[in-house]
C-alpha cells in the first residue's frame, strides 16, 4: 500500500465527521521493510457510541468475528455491548488476510491490542483537552472517559469527533493481563443468534437481482479435458439458458434455478479426454511413496548423529491416505461481471488470492475485482483454494449476468484438493534401560506448496516448519522429508502435515514405551523431564510446556487409575502451530471396532482470548480428527476419486461422538494456535488405546475400511 493511499484513508476518516475512524498501522514485521505501511487494524466509533470493529479474517466457525473484536475491545476499554463487527473483504489495508494456519488470533493479537490502545489514548486526550485537566487524571472505562476528581464523564460517542482530530500515538501503553475484563472471559459469540434462526447468510444464501445459477461438469479424471459435448438434451431442461466450456476441463450449465442447472448437467453428454492419469490408482501411489522412502531426503531437524548409535534398534513404517475436507457448505461463489470489473461474494479463506486469481482469469486489473467475504459453512482449509471464485467470474462473464456457481457434495468430494497421502519410516535405538538414544523419522509425502508452484527452500514444504517438530529431549534425532509429486490435487486440511507427523511419531513413541515395558505416560514424561528449548525452524519448543499439557490431561483423565471393565486408555501429545496439546482417549472394543467414550484434552496455547471458543475448537478438533482416524479416506481408481458423498466418506455422527473435556494450562505467553493443534494427538492416542485393548498395533489409517 502506498503512503498516499494511507493518508487518503486517514483524512477521509477524519473529515467524514461521523466519528473517530482509526486505521492503525504498524510494520508487519521488521524483516518486511518493503511493506512497512501494512495496516493492522481498523476501528470506527460513531457519535452515537456504536463501536465497529472490522474483522479482516474470515469466519468459518472458529469464532474470529468474536475473538478478534474482544482483543481490540479490551485495550479500548469498550463496553462489549456496544461492539458491532464489519467483515472486511479483500483489501490493501490489512496485510495478508489469509485465514489459516491457526493464525488469526496469533497474528492479530498484537496489532488489535495496539489499535484499541491507541484509540483509548486518543479518547483520553480528547476528554482531557475538553475538560482542561491533565491526561493522568482521566481514566477510560466502559466506553467512557471518567474524571473522578470532578465526577465528570464523557462517552466515547461524545468524544469521537474531537478524538478524530488528534495525532495517533505510535506506541500506546498496553494493559497487563491481570487487568483484563474481556480477554479471557467466555463471552457468548456474536454470530450465534443468527445461526439458530436461519438469518445467518452464508455464501450459498447470497442472492442478487437477476442472478442465475450454474453447476459445472468437471472432468472426473485428474488432469483430463473436455473432448466433445452435446448440449441438446441439457438445453431442453426448463430454465437452462446456457451451456459452455469453462477452461479446458469443465462445462458450465446455467439456469434460472439450482435444480434446473443440476438437471441440465445430468443430461449433458460429454466425452472426456482423460489425459495422462487415466490409469492412476491408490495402490500405485502408495507403492511409489514407499519406494521414495529409500531415496534422497531433506533434513528438517538434526541433533547428534543417529547413524553412529548402537543398541537395540526398532523400526516401523506408517501410512496415511488422502483425505477430503468436506465442509458442510459445499463450494459456491456469486459473481457479477460488469464489462471491465467484477464483484464477488465469496465464502473464502483467501479473499486477496481470489481477487488476484479472478483478475488473472479475466485479464483485468486486480483493482477492478472486488471480493466480499461471506460467512462460511466450515472451511478446514478447503476454502484456501480459489477455484470457486474463478469459476463464478468466468461464467458470469460468459453469460453477462450475475451468476452463482454451486458445487454439489459429489463435486466437492471428487474435484477437490486433498490432504496428501504419506508414508513414514521411523527408527529408534534404545539403551539398556529402554530409553531412546537415537530417533529418526522420515516423512514421505507430496508437497502441497510444491504442487502449487512454491516448493520452499531446499524442497521443504514451508508447512512442515509449523507442523512436524518433535518436542522430546533425545541426544540423537533426525527428522527428514522426501517430496514425491503426485497428480492428485493437494490442499491444506486442518492441521495439515501435523496429522501425519503426529500419528506416526506418537504411535511410534508408544511402540518404544511398550518395547521398554514402561508406562507410555511415564515414558513421555521421562523424555520431557529436562527443561530444554528445542529450536525447530522458527519455533522454540519447550519441553516444560509439553510436560504441562501431558500431566494435566493425564491427571484429569485419571491415567493409571482403574477403568471400567473393558475400557482402555491411550495417550498422545503433539505440538504444532506454536501450541501444545495432549489427549487421553478412553475406548472399549466392540466387534473389533473401537468405541471412543471420552477424550480428555489439555492445551497450552498461551493467553486464552475466549475460553468458550477455545473449548469449541478443541471439541471440534477432536471430532474432526476422529473422522480422519476412523474412516476418512479418498481413494483413486482409474484416475478418479472413488468416494462421492457422506455414505462412502462418512464423518462421525452423534452415535460415535465422544464426550470431550477440554483443559487449559494457564499461560501469559502471547496466544498461539487453537484450531488445528487439537487434531493430531487424537489418532495416535486412539490407536495406542487399541493396542492396550488388543495388543495389535495400527500402522495405517483409516481404522475402518
Amino acid at each position, binding site marked *: 500500500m502506498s503512503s498516499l493511499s494511507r493518508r487518503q484513508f486517514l483524512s477521509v476518516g477524519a473529515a467524514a465527521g461521523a466519528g473517530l475512524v482509526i486505521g492503525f498501522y504498524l510494520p508487519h514485521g521488521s524483516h518486511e521493510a518493503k511493506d512497512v505501511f501494512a495496516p493492522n487494524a481498523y476501528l470506527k466509533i460513531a457519535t452515537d457510541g456504536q463501536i465497529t470493529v472490522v474483522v479482516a479474517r474470515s469466519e*468459518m*466457525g*472458529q*469464532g474470529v468475528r468474536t475473538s478478534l473484536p474482544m482483543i481490540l475491545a479490551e485495550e479500548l476499554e469498550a463496553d462489549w455491548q456496544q461492539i458491532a463487527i464489519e467483515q472486511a473483504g479483500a483489501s490493501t489495508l490489512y496485510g495478508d488476510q489469509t485465514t489459516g494456519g491457526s493464525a488469526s488470533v496469533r497474528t492479530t493479537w498484537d496489532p488489535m491490542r495496539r489499535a484499541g490502545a491507541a484509540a483509548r489514548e486518543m479518547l483520553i486526550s480528547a476528554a482531557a483537552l475538553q475538560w482542561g485537566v491533565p491526561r493522568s487524571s482521566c481514566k477510560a472505562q466502559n466506553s467512557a472517559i471518567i474524571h473522578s476528581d470532578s465526577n465528570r464523564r464523557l462517552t466515547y460517542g461524545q468524544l469521537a469527533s474531537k478524538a478524530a482530530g488528534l495525532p495517533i500515538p505510535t506506541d500506546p501503553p498496553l494493559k497487563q493481563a491481570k487487568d483484563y475484563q474481556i480477554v479471557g472471559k467466555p463471552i*457468548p*459469540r456474536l*454470530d*450465534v*443468534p*443468527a*445461526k*439458530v*434462526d*436461519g*438469518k*445467518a*447468510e*452464508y455464501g*450459498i*444464501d447470497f*442472492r442478487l437481482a437477476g442472478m442465475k445459477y450454474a453447476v459445472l461438469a468437471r472432468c472426473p479424471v485428474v488432469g483430463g479435458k473436455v473432448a466433445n459435448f452435446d448440449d441438446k438434451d441439457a438445453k431442453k431442461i*426448463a430454465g437452462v439458458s446456457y451451456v459452455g466450456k469453462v477452461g479446458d476441463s469443465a462445462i458450465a450449465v446455467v439456469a434460472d*434455478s*439450482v*435444480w*434446473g442447472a443440476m*438437471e441440465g448437467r445430468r443430461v449433458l453428454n460429454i466425452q472426456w479426454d482423460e489425459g495422462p492419469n487415466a490409469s492412476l490408482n491408490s495402490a500405485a501411489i502408495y507403492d511409489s511413496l514407499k519406494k521414495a522412502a529409500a531415496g534422497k531426503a531433506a533434513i528438517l531437524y538434526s541433533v547428534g548423529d543417529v547413524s553412529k548409535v548402537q543398541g537395540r534398534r526398532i523400526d516401523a513404517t506408517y501410512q496415511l491416505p488422502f483425505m477430503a475436507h*468436506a*465442509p*458442510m*457448505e*459445499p463450494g459456491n461463489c456469486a459473481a457479477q461481471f460488469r464489462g471491465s470489473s467484477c464483484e464477488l461474494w465469496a465464502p473464502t479463506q483467501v479473499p486477496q488470492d481470489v481477487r488476484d486469481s479472478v483478475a488473472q482469469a479475466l485479464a483485468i486489473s486486480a483493482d477492478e475485482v472486488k471480493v466480499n467475504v461471506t*460467512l*462460511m*459453512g*466450515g*472451511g478446514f482449509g478447503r476454502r484456501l483454494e480459489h477455484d470457486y471464485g474463478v469459476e463464478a467470474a468466468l461464467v458470469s462473464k460468459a453469460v453477462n449476468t450475475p451468476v452463482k456457481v*454451486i458445487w*454439489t*457434495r*459429489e463435486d466437492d468430494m471428487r474435484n477437490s484438493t486433498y490432504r496428501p497421502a504419506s508414508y513414514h519410516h521411523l527408527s529408534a535405538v534404545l539403551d539398556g534401560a529402554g530409553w531412546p538414544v537415537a530417533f529418526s523419522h522420515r516423512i514421505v509425502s507430496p508437497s502441497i506448496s510444491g504442487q502449487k508452484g512454491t516448493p520452499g527452500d531446499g524442497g521443504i514444504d514451508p508447512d512442515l516448519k509449523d507442523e512436524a517438530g518433535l518436542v522430546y529431549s533425545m541426544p540423537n534425532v533426525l527428522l527428514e522429508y522426501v517430496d514425491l509429486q503426485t497428480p492428485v490435487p493437494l490442499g491444506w486440511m486442518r492441521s495439515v502435515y501435523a496429522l501425519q507427523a503426529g500419528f506416526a511419531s506418537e504411535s511410534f513413541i508408544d511402540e518404544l514405551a511398550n518395547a521398554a515395558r514402561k508406562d507410555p505416560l511415564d515414558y513421555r514424561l521421562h523424555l520431557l523431564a529436562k527443561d530444554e528449548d528445542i529450536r525447530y525452524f522458527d519455533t522454540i519448543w519447550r519441553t516444560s510446556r509439553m510436560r504441562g499439557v501431558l500431566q494435566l490431561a493425564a491427571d484429569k483423565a485419571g491415567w493409571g487409575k482403574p477403568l471400567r471393565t473393558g475400557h482402555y486408555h491411550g495417550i498422545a501429545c503433539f505440538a504444532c502451530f506454536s501450541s501444545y496439546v495432549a489427549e487421553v482417549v478412553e475406548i472399549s472394543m466392540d466387534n473389533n471396532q473401537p468405541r471412543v467414550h471420552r477424550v480428555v484434552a489439555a492445551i497450552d496455547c498461551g493467553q486464552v482470548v475466549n475460553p*468458550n471458543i477455545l473449548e*469449541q475448537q478443541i*471439541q*471440534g*478438533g*477432536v*471430532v*474432526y480428527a476422529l473422522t480422519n482416524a476412523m474412516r476418512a479416506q479418498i481413494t483413486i481408481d482409474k484416475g478418479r476419486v472413488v468416494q462421492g*458423498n*457422506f*455414505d462412502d466418506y462418512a*464423518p*462421525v*455422527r*452423534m*452415535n460415535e*461422538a465422544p*464426550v*470431550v473435556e477440554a483443559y487449559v494450562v494457564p499461560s501469559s505467553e502471547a496466544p498461539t494456535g487453537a484450531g488445528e493443534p487439537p487434531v493430531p494427538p487424537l489418532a495416535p492416542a486412539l490407536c495406542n488405546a487399541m493396542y492396550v485393548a488388543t495388543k495389535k498395533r495400527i500402522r495405517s489409517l483409516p481404522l475402518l475400511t
Partner: protein
Amino acid sequence: MAEITLRVNSSEHKVSVAPDTPLLWVLRDTLALTGTKFGCGAGLCGACTVHLDGAAIRSCSMPVSQASGKNITTIEGLSANALHALQQAWIAEQVPQCGYCQTGQIMAAAALLAKSPHPSDDQITQAMNGNLCRCGTYDRIRRAIHRAAGGSQ
C-alpha cells in the same frame, strides 16, 4: 412446469416449478427461505431438515409435488413470536461453530421434543443421528436438547 400450492410456515404459496424439484430448492430459490441448507442432496446429512405435518424430513430428497397439501415448517417458522426453547438453549449452550448444519439440527430436535418432551440420551442419539456436523458440536447439541427439555425423564 406445474402450478403447485404449498403451505409453508402457515402461509399459502403458489409456485410454478417442475414437479420433481426437491422441496429444498423451492424453499431456497423460489421462496427465499434460505435457513434450510443444502449439504448432500441425498438425505445423508440432515442440513435440509424441515417439518412435514410435524415430522422431520429431508427436503433435498422430497419432490415438491409430494409436499403439496401438507403443512411445511422451516426454521423461519419454527416459532411464531419469541425464539423456540431449543433456539434459546442453542444460544445458552453456545452450540454453533460454523452454524451451517444447526438449523437442520434444531428442526430435527424440535420434531423429537414434540414427540418426546423429555428424551433420554438414547432417544436423542437416535433422533439426531441423521444430522451431520463437521464442526463436532454433538456434545453441545445433546446438552442443549436436555436444557430445552428441562432435563430427561
